[in-house]
């Protein structure tokens, strides 16, 4: 078994049902998403049916079953952001990245996720890219921000 996975399991010595969601959180934090193999391992460790775990994991928006992009974009779509035009920003992001919310683009560079509220309503509309906030967005600034990230990526590649 994967050593990192094993060390996550060791954090939950009691093997109880209520360890399930925290454990899935830890796995996703570590690996970026929940793979089938990991879910099966969790099932046999906690002695919970894999079908049940899949049912739990799919209930919550937080869990992903495919890898994220190098840059994970989270668009806030709370009430304040909606009023400030988050729908237009989302449309622009989808147009620019050619992916829908919840998807990762083919090159694996960007993935897009709509979240209900980040809680920085005063700065709406905003996106968060890998813990970096970009606030008070407009259609134009989205383009510029994405281009910056693409450039950063190319620089990484050149180095």
């Amino acid at each position, binding site marked *: 078994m994967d050593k990192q996975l094993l060390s996550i399991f060791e954090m939950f010595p009691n093997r*109880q*049902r*209520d*360890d*399930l*969601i*925290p454990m*899935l*959180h830890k796995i996703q934090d570590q690996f970026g998403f929940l793979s089938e193999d990991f879910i099966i391992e969790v099932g046999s460790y906690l002695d919970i049916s894999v079908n049940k775990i899949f*049912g*739990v994991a799919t*209930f*919550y*928006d*937080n*869990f992903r079953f495919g890898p994220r992009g190098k840059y994970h974009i989270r668009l806030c*779509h*709370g*009430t*304040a*952001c*909606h*009023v*400030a035009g988050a729908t237009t920003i989302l449309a622009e992001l989808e147009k620019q990245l050619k992916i829908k919310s919840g998807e990762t683009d083919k090159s694996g560079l960007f993935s897009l996720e709509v*979240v*209900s*509220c*980040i*809680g*920085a*309503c*005063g*700065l*709406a509309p*905003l996106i*968060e890219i890998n813990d970096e*906030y970009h*606030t008070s967005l407009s259609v134009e600034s989205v383009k510029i921000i994405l281009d910056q990230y693409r450039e950063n990526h190319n620089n990484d590649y050149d180095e």
Partner: protein
Amino acid sequence: MNNDHSQVKKFLTDKILRNRDRDKDPDLMRQLSQISGERISEPMIYVGTTSCALAAGAKKTFKAIEKYIHDNQLNVRLIEGGCTGNCKAEPLVDVQLPGKARISFHNVLHEMVPDFLDEILNNSLPEKMVLAQYHSDIHQLWEGVPFVHELPFNTGQTKILTANCGVTDPVSVAQYIARGGYQAFADTIAKYTPADVCDIVEKSELAGRGGGAFIAGKKWKISLNAVSDQKYFVCNAVESDPGSYMNRVIMESDPHKLIEALLIAAYAIGASKAFIFTRSEFSLSIKRLNAALKEAEEYGITGHNIFDSGVNIDIVVKEGARAFVCGEETALNNSIEGKRAMPSFKPPFPAIRGLWNKPTIVNNLETLINVPLIMKNGPEWFRGIGNETSKGTKLFSLSGKVNNYGTIEVEMGTSFRYIVENIGGGIKDNSEFKAIILGINSGSYITDKTLDIKVDFNELKQAGSQLGSGACVVVGQESCMLDLARFFTTFFKNESCGKCIPCREGTALMLEIIEAATRKPSKENSFQTLERFKGIMQLKGLAGVMKDTSLCSLGKSAPNAILNTLANFKSEFDAHVFERKCPAGVCRELRTYHIDVDMCTGCTACYKKCPVDAIIGAARQPHFVVQDKCIACNACFEACKFNAVIID
């Protein structure tokens, strides 16, 4: 602080927490003010680094200050702090120089840091950045600088619950105790029985802030009187209503307040285990809560046999995994148990059969943090705040089209007009007030007709609204209410747990009805036209059944947004349905595009951009939009350099 850590700990536990006569010794107070950071011997810089501040760039500011201190080898205390609620001023930096009053600076961006610190650390004021100073009797005040409590944003507020927010080091248990914290808890377990605590809280008339406005003390008594070997207390800090973030601010800025409240509450019902259930996105809240819990445990405030009283209380922070329905108490319990967060039927209520079928009280965070204050100052004091029918204060997350935004705390009985016009500083961007949205979960609006309504459970109920989650989003005339209703209904459709038929199917059907009203007219066939009218006619009946039969409050309140739009903004509704126009111009599919023949130069820019060949016309001839083909993508409008494209 000159004393080392263990001495401070010994002093605070023995001389303060375990000492019932602490208030009689003035010398103790002096010592406390040193621990609390009011009296300092070295300069202190305090950077608000809560989530909203981080979004505004506080992390970079903090790093820049850290670097400055390091580069100049200064002896300065730098603190990652909480939030005063004044989001507009972020990143906010407080500086306290020995002997001088603490002073706040607004919008300190990282590139400004070196110049800013050069000035202030040399006792001169960077005037453009000054926000306000804190009043002090023991320190020298800055000349010509307004006081914090005199700021227009703050004057109308009653800061009881948020008193510590943005002032103390959030994680430090020593500072919290030095500012009067954990004393209420220490006294409570020494002086009162659990039944006494329930009585006192009931007498204070503290009502649940989660929506039901149930008297907290009454609820607690149900669990207290239930016979069981194990009971649980759960703090509901899920706060998944978009637009509300007061709980987050409390957890990030004053986590010990919540811990103390939960300890008293758990003691009151005889629970030895308590949970704080919050969202996984609130990573900073979780980090600070866990850090604070660790410090509290070190002081022997939580855990086994607290202060030798025989009381055992463990507190565990539980992360949700993003599902709005977790705000419902039975769903929340299921989520803690590691299941799909689908609500269970009531009765039996969780107070009798909750987590793992044991008596469990679930209280909202905001309700809970009132408890230490009530225990400290007495129920009469609490009843003195607020008005006849609603007691205490209420937190709001004020955002939207107002000049000042952030977390605010107002006395019950304050009018919404006062909140918008005075605290919020009026409507920004030359817009006009249209409505306040009081959280998605209530689906209530305050309109210009009801703006004088007070923050009061009864008054709001009579007006057909609810206090809701505490979100307070102000919208101006440029917003379309039908668009908002659609946004809310989409939210409910996505967040419905899927268990009961009325909520699962009803929300989806309601959304389809609304979408039919905002769909492009030219794409509609006669059958769909009929469907659109039929849908609107069925809307009320559908909403009625959903309210009547849904399993939990999510389904019961899902139709509110639409019903309230119908009640308050009928003309806007009618314009969409009958005239097929969006008065605010928000609903894109109802826009029509025309080309002004006189303005058009025939440059073919729009013709080339149109993705669906809806524009016809030859070069140097005026162009024309074929309405049937147009998908209202706005490409032609963006392409036209001559303002010839007109949106209707």
